[in-house]
């Protein structure tokens, strides 16, 4: 597949259909390819595709769309949901993107450059097909790791007493170092100015002063991406402290599914999200306040 991608990229650059190609570049470590824009055909020998190409390139397309010319971008099936969601939110200029869908057999979790198994998101993957593409480069021989229950972790937490659940999150979030990697890597976190970066409000903080503050940061972020989070799992992948951030997002996804019916953000570019589609005349209030107190 890697060779096919190089040939495709080379043609697109050679005949001028594309100004640049967004893919993954070889580094000193096989397990750590780097997201990279290729503009010269000679550099394409550095283009790689393997199970370590975990970075979701959709977010980089926001900036790419502001540059001249078409950008070819390689997207794994789950990445295409992020891409679609960004098109829906008018963050990506679809006309300036040439999406090449690539097969995925799961991404490896890497620690100290060692392959230590699968990323959690790949163990619960439900996004097997590309929802947007201009061209597909597939490898049918790739097999995925055996699927586990995507909401299993959330269900386990829901089964805990509230104090136990509080202690669980206290334990997870107190290790946060406020590096903002989860926010910055998140395709849904595309505000030009984040409330946590504004000096005007007391929400601006770089410090892990109190656990209260950590909870605020992560919970506000989870609510801000509610209904828009595609569960791409980038936040959990990049967290240097391995905080189980996917559980927070998935809890909200599960609630949305149960309250408003099954919904997958990024499935298409038109359907309004369940939290933005309320029609006071025709929709009934889900009355969560009344049923949960």
């Amino acid at each position, binding site marked *: 597949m890697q060779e096919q991608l190089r040939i495709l990229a080379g043609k697109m650059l050679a005949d001028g259909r594309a100004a640049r190609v967004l893919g993954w570049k070889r*580094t000193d470590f096989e397990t750590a390819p*780097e997201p990279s824009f290729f503009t010269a055909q000679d550099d394409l020998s550095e283009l790689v595709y393997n199970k370590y190409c975990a970075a979701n390139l959709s977010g980089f397309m926001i900036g790419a769309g502001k540059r001249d010319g078409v950008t070819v971008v390689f997207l794994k099936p789950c990445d295409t949901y992020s891409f679609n969601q960004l098109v829906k939110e008018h963050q990506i200029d679809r006309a300036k993107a040439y999406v090449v869908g690539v097969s995925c057999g799961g991404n490896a979790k890497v620690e100290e450059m060692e392959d230590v198994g699968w990323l959690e998101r790949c163990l619960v993957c439900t996004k097997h097909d590309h929802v947007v593409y201009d061209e597909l480069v597939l490898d049918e021989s790739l097999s995925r790791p055996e699927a586990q229950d995507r909401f299993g972790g959330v269900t386990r937490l829901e089964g805990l007493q509230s104090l136990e659940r509080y202690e669980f999150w206290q334990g997870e979030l107190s290790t946060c170092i406020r590096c903002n990697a989860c926010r*910055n890597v998140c395709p849904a976190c595309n505000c030009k100015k984040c409330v946590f970066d504004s*000096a005007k409000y007391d929400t601006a903080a*770089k410090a892990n002063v109190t656990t209260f503050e950590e909870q605020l940061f992560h919970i506000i972020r989870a609510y801000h991406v509610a209904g828009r989070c595609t569960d791409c799992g980038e936040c959990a992948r*990049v967290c240097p402290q391995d905080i189980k951030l996917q559980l927070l997002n998935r809890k909200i996804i599960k609630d949305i599914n149960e309250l408003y019916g099954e919904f997958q953000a990024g499935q298409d570019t038109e359907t309004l999200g369940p939290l933005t589609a309320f029609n006071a005349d025709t929709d009934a209030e889900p009355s969560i306040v009344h049923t949960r107190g």
Partner: protein
Amino acid sequence: MYKVSATQLTDVLNTLAGTMDVFLPIRKDGQTNFGLYAEGVQADFDTLKTVKPPKEFFLPQSESLYKGVVDGKDIHIEPAAFADRPFVVFGMRGCDVLGMEILDKVYLGEPVDRFYEARRGHGCVVALACGRPASTCFCKPFGVDASDPQADVTAWLCGQYLYLEPVTERGRQLTHKLEPFLQDADAEDVAEYRQEIRERLEALPYNNLSLDALKDADMLEVFNSPVWDSVCDACIACGTCSYVCPTCQCYDIKDYNTGDGAIRYRTWDSCMYSDFTLMAHGNPRKTQKERFRQRFMHKLVYHPSTAGGQLSCVGCGRCVNKCPSSLNIVKIMKSLGVS
């Protein structure tokens, strides 16, 4: 040199904890960080690198400087107390010890930072040799000997023993507290272990980087290098590299509204952030390229120009390991000519 039976390690730690705070690597949910030891806590000396560097015990991620309390029409200023409790950081790696030396140049140089000075004055460092250095390690080019790290006490966990070699007077006082457990040992006892470590280091990809290209680098030439135009393409502007770095030293000063006043505190900052050194007129570095360049100019050019050529990197490899986009300082050094 002394040795203690590894089976008595808990007794050693309990003895120390009786007279001072003991901070050591503790594993929690799959990640290891330095934390406060208490009886029953299991130390993790197997994990090579903690996620956060242990500099936080001398330069906490956030610390209060003073408090302003409103009392009627008056405002009382209550300065924060300086650290006055002795502590030991037990199991710091050689790279992180060198990181402290770099922080010392900044925080103990004029004007002396009193908060840092107080912590430095009360803290003792026991450095632990790296039995299994990782492929991301490159401390040797910076002059660190991972098989013989120099701090107040040098320690080796080798075979069935913990070997201790006090280096400074403070280190001698610390080992003195452990006298009931100590047996005499000889440098020869760890010689083979040290040799093994050196052989492992030699097999690592970055162990023999030559930093010559950065010596006497022309500041403006590096600053204006076309390298910066594309090398930061993949940077997502998070602060991971800064916050896991043992030499990153910049802080921001902020106020916390307590309702009846304010706490003025300082917090680690990252030059990757959009509000880094934000001033009334705006931000002097408006693009990510400029912010990215700042981080590496500081480490590879600015700091050396004021510190006798010493680079502000110690080769711990945490940024290599943790960057979400697989960027790191080695990549930057190489693009600037290091080989």
